[in-house]
């Protein structure tokens, strides 16, 4: 921070507009000189207020008291406001901060803080950021502000007691932010560990596992019940099949009975037929002679024809006809003797005629007499009639014989079949059952089967649904496990990474502190040796690596504790330490308020000579006593000088630049 100008208006002891401007060379020391109570420390306070809106009280920044900030005279004049404008360069940028506090509109006599309102204008390279001065906090944290604007009070405090040196130095170096980062990393790491525990005992997974357990238990129960029901169903099916077989057996039994009935019918039919055949046979036997006769007649006819032809032929050859008697004998020898009373020697014509008639129809023959038979005409007619049906009768006799054979054959078969079927009937398994009972039982079992089957089907459907749910849950569980595994892996990696970051940060803090400690030690030693009046005895300062306690290093290498030094020597040591600290942290303007404290003249002179080298610009706030005429001669590179003039009557100060 290289201050370019500071403008105060009605700020505390200063009335009206007062300005300190630091111009570029020659010289880099600005001296503001004034007696006690004229506003030297107020100038430093105005910078703190402009930057942070706070007041400095005993090395601390506290909320501002607006009523105390506004100059009394100005308030009495009706100008109840105060303003500080600070212009400085940092990292090549021009920063303008203007803070203002004024009585609220309508408040004529502001007393309380609430009677005032504060405004801020913050600009970087001309760009207005309004109230947003976060850049200040980033670049010049409050905690380290003391070390780039330090006053005699701070020097004295460090000279008397090196309290919390390490903490102070770490603040100056910004290391608390690294520690803060470390704490935050630790917190995040703990969050990761908690997340890991949560993931490993994931409620989602537990819920799915619980559901799965319940469903699997339910499925196991259902399978057991289903097995029982299926076994019962199998029993029912067996029973039903048995009953159905029984019913089929009843059919079989009825078949046997039917066959027996048919066989009996057939047997009776055969018996009827036998009677018919017997009758036919008796009739046939009764007709047999007639049949024989008719056969004889036919034979006779044939023979008559042959005899006649032969006789005719012989008679033709002999020139005569055979004797009729012989002729008749011939006829008789042929088995059929036909004779007639009317037949005579020339009865040939009649025989011929008869033969013709016999050969043709035999119907016209009136009487046939033989030695054996004496047929009446009626007999002859009967014979003729029978003769007519001789073929038919012959055929009938064959049919009758066949029938008899069929009858004989079947009667035995039927008897055997009947015996067999009756045996079957006697030994049939359904013989002792009652079909109605079987049917009723079958009906009942079929109903039972339907009930059990419905139950089994329902159970299978439910089981199938459960199995589908189980599959879905197993899939979700697998996903959950996969996620769990993936999340656990990520978290473990994050924890591991956090651990390494923690170690790295710790190492960075230690190494940064050590590097800075060495830098501060070197720089503060340089300042110390240039100021001390015992440069040969005390060759430098030593800063303890652990506590950052500052000790003076003697020529022999021994370390001298500050309590063994004089007040002045301690002051030099503290000034050198703070100077070294400032130099090692921020370049820019160093404001030193009454830095000479308890220094003796030698130390004071050495410090005065050293002042231009302490920073790029140095603002020295001193009293007349601090810088006497001789001192002025030692102070080099003075750029400008300001006097703090005080109006005893009005009780306010003003800053006046002097030539």
């Amino acid at each position, binding site marked *: 921070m290289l201050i370019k100008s500071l403008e105060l208006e009605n700020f505390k002891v200063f009335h009206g507009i007062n300005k300190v401007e630091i111009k570029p060379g020659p010289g880099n020391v600005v001296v503001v000189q004034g007696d006690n109570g004229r506003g030297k420390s107020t100038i430093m306070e105005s910078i703190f207020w402009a930057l942070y809106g706070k007041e400095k009280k005993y090395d601390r920044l506290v909320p501002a008291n607006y009523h105390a900030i506004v100059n009394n005279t100005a308030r009495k004049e009706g100008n109840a406001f105060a303003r500080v404008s600070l212009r400085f360069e940092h990292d090549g940028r021009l920063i303008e901060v203007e803070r203002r506090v004024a009585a609220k509109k309508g408040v004529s006599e502001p007393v309380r803080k609430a009677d005032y309102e504060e405004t801020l204008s913050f600009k970087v390279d001309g760009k207005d950021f309004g109230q947003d001065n*976060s*850049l200040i*906090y*980033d*670049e010049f*944290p409050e905690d380290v502000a003391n070390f780039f604007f330090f006053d005699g009070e701070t020097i004295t405090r460090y000279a008397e007691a090196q309290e919390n040196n390490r903490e102070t130095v770490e603040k100056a*170096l*910004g*290391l608390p*932010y*690294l520690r*803060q*980062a470390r704490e*935050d*990393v630790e*917190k*995040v*790491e703990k*969050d*990761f560990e908690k997340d890991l525990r949560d993931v490993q005992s994931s409620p989602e997974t537990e819920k799915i596992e619980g559901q799965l357990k319940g469903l699997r238990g339910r499925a196991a129960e259902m399978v057991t019940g289903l097995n029982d029901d299926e076994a019962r169903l199998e029993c029912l099916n067996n029973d039903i099949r048995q009953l159905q077989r029984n019913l089929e057996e009843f059919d079989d039994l009825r078949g046997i009975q039917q066959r027996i009935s048919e066989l009996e019918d057939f047997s009776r039919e055969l018996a009827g037929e036998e009677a018919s055949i017997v009758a036919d046979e008796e009739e046939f036997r009764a007709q047999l002679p007639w049949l024989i006769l008719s056969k004889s007649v036919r034979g006779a006819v044939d023979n008559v024809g042959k005899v006649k032809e032969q006789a005719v032929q012989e008679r033709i050859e002999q020139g005569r006809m055979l004797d009729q008697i012989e002729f008749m004998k011939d006829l008789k020898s042929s088995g059929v003797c036909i004779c007639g009373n009317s037949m005579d020697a020339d009865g040939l014509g009649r025989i011929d005629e008869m033969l013709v008639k016999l050969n043709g129809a035999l119907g016209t023959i009136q009487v046939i007499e033989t030695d054996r038979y004496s047929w009446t005409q009626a007999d002859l007619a009967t014979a003729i009639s029978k003769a007519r049906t001789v073929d038919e009768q012959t055929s009938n006799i064959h049919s009758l014989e066949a029938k008899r054979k069929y009858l004989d054959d079947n009667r035995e078969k039927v008897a055997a079949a009947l015996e067999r079927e009756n045996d079957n009937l006697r030994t049939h398994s359904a013989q002792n059952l009652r079909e109605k009972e079987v049917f009723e039982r079958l009906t009942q079992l079929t109903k039972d089967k339907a009930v059990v089957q419905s139950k089994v089907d329902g159970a299978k459907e439910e089981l199938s649904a459960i199995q589908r749910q189980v599959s879905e849950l197993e899939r979700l569980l697998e996903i959950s496990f996969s996620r769990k595994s993936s999340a656990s892996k*990520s978290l473990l*990696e*994050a924890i591991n*990474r*956090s651990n*390494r*970051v923690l*170690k*790295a*940060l710790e*190492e*960075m803090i230690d*190494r*940064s502190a050590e*590097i800075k400690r060495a830098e501060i030690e070197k720089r503060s030693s340089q300042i110390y040796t240039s100021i001390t009046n015992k440069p040969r005895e005390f060759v430098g300062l030593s800063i303890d690596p652990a506590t950052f306690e500052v000790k003076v290093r003697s020529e022999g290498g021994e370390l001298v504790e500050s309590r063994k030094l004089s007040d002045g020597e301690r002051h030099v040591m503290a000034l050198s330490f703070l100077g070294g600290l400032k130099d090692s942290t921020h370049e820019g303007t160093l404001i030193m308020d009454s830095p000479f404290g308890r220094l003796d003249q030698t130390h004071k002179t050495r410090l005065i000579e050293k002042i231009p080298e302490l920073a790029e610009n140095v603002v020295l706030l001193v009293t007349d006593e601090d810088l006497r005429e001789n001192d002025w001669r030692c102070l080099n590179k003075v750029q400008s000088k300001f006097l703090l003039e005080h109006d005893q009557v009005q009780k306010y100060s003003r800053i006046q630049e002097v030539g």
Partner: protein
Amino acid sequence: MPQVLVDPAILAEVCRKHKLDEDMVFKLVSAEKAVGVRTHRLKEFRKLLGGEV
């Protein structure tokens, strides 16, 4: 405009030693520090340490 507090050489060396991504550690040590943004800052840290960024 965060203030870089760590010497880049130290940062690089420590990150190499602890096998850490230098950019990630740089973001951690230079993250916004204002008190009012602590929650946001922790979220950023979580992302960084969780390997999301």
